[in-house]
């Protein structure tokens, strides 16, 4: 089973989730270290400090075959999204950017 890192809104976070990257305040102070297990009290504190998003660890139980199928499906979908868009260097770069971004969690 792989452990993946996911950025989620604090509003969606739940106690027992594990922090994957240090949470910093707007002035750069580390509020929570990576590996911290969230509690109601910690979540409440993050909201109070106006923290919008946090990185958490997520277990991924999908097999390599399932991931491969998912990658193909996403590639098809993103290609279709850009199918009718005009071509051009920047549009190609955007297409590539979105494709890489969507496929990254499936590697």
């Amino acid at each position: 089973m792989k452990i993946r890192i996911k950025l989620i809104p604090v509003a969606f976070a739940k106690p027992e989730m594990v922090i994957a990257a240090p949470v910093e305040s707007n002035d750069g102070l580390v509020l929570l270290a990576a590996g911290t297990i969230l509690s109601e009290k910690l979540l409440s504190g993050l909201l109070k400090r106006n923290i919008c998003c946090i990185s958490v660890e997520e277990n991924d139980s999908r097999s390599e075959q399932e991931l491969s199928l998912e990658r193909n499906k996403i590639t098809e979908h993103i290609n279709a999204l850009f199918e009718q868009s005009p071509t051009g260097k920047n549009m190609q770069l955007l297409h590539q950017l979105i494709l890489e971004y969507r496929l990254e969690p499936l590697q």
Partner: protein
Amino acid sequence: MSVPKSMDDILQHIEYLPAMPKAVLEIIRCIDDPDTGVDEVVRTISLDIGLTASILKVANAARYSGHGNITNINDALMVVGLQQIRTMVCIVGVKDSFPQIKSPFFNYTNFWRHSVSVAVCARTLAKLAGTSPAVGFIAGMLHDIGQLIFTMAVPEDFNSAMEYRASHKCQDFEAEQAVLGMDHSAIGAHLAKKWKLPPVICNAIENHHSPDVPPTLIMADLIHVSEVLSHALEMGYAGHSVPPISDRALSRLGISFTKLKPSLAQIECEYQNAILMLN
């Protein structure tokens, strides 16, 4: 089908133009003013009972549970912070300014989600481009308000434009120009000027589909690129193809798509966070 010939014709169809709450206008006008302090923002919001009630409703939503009941704007500020309060004012205040008219061709939920998605993209891209994230956010929220005017003033013609869009697989503004003789950016800018919004926001509304028409302003570039990015990330509207991008607008902003990847997760996360305020 009678097609209106001018903007005045269209506006004559509306008995009352939407009125944005004075408090929202005040906060938009001074959104980028460092001299506007917390006390002034609180006082401005508190003067509007309807807006205060809406803000408290959002602030008391499940995401802030554990803080007890928030009963006034001062308490809300303590719990969610000034930036979040301003975001709430921009989202809730703008949305509540427009009546919702039933239409089989217009989905208000998707409309507001799209507006929020462009606003969130604009806030992030503004930081990269070295311009105001707060102004970018509100310009993003308001960029398509002309479509709401169409739904109120000429609902049948606007429905025809949306049908035209679907059958011709073109952009909204192209369908509106073909069917109505004008598009939402012109009528939206007209309303923004009536509201006496800052010229930079009016220009962004007017030129977000034509950022290369002089005078070119960075805020119009920002909203144009933000809209393309929001479609590419499929935030707001699902199933719409990605619209064309102005290479010159992107270049004026100094943004390169090759360096944008680290910002995408943050944009999606802020979008999920912001749409909670729509419900």
